[in-house]
């Protein structure tokens, strides 16, 4: 379940980065502060390498940068909203505004189901709109919990 992996500190309502690299660094710094990520530089290099092999941006303003590797401690999820949108080189050309950032240890069995669940959740227009209208992290958590009920 998505909501079980979240607390309010893991939701950033106003990502400030103007580029994909800035946004990734912002998430990584936040993950480091929350003790979810140890080596910021290695995480950044690996996730950027994957992004360069194919952007994690889906359609309709959603991006899900994700990485599973053995240097990651445990499965974690961060969520960020960028009001102005950032060019993640999305498949439909739309700027990404709702961004999920995921890390996991290699062979973590919950990793693919988590990615799948988030992708399906974000296929609903009402969910995307609610995310963008949320003014507190608690609201984002409520939207997810309600959808998962």
């Amino acid at each position: 379940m998505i909501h079980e992996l979240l607390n309010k500190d893991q939701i950033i309502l106003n990502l400030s980065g103007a580029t994909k690299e800035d946004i990734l660094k912002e998430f990584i710094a936040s993950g480091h502060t929350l003790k979810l990520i140890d080596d910021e530089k290695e995480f950044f290099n690996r996730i950027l390498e994957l992004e360069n092999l194919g952007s994690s941006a889906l359609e309709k303003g959603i991006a899900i940068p994700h990485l599973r590797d053995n240097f990651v401690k445990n499965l974690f999820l961060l969520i960020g909203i960028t009001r102005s949108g950032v060019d993640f080189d999305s498949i439909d050309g739309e700027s990404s505004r709702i961004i999920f950032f995921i890390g996991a240890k290699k062979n973590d069995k919950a990793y693919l189901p988590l990615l799948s669940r988030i992708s399906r959740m974000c296929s609903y227009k009402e969910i995307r709109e609610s995310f963008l209208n949320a003014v507190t992290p608690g609201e984002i958590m409520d939207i997810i919990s309600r959808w998962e009920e």
Partner: protein
Amino acid sequence: MILKNIDKILLPFFDSNDIENILEKIEKIDFENKQFILLRLLDIEHIKFLAKRMKKDADLLISELEDDGWNSLYYYEEEFKKKYVNVRIALKSGNVVNEILQCISNFGIDTIILTREQKKGFEGMMKEKILKNIMLDSDKIIIII
């Protein structure tokens, strides 16, 4: 060489066998600097028919199949990237022929790869329909492997 005119390649698929087949074969062709878009397709009318036959709630079955579809997309995204292939993913539910034609237009696709593997029943029928419609409605390169 025809590959010089290829930049964005759509790989529509219905199940893992299709994509395994494609993954195995593209390794033998030089697709360096090309972008692949893996497109998982779910035909809603067919799923509704199946749900009725299984006496199962159609919306629930669609949700399960969408989860399963995304799961396979992320799995194969990882497999393609392990081979340093530039890959993107998308899932479309609806009328699969229309969805493919829309993706060709919306994603700026220039090439479509379809598997030659013969399938009976619904998937075989859909593949024929897709091929016929792409040939009729678009001027894109079609590679059948």
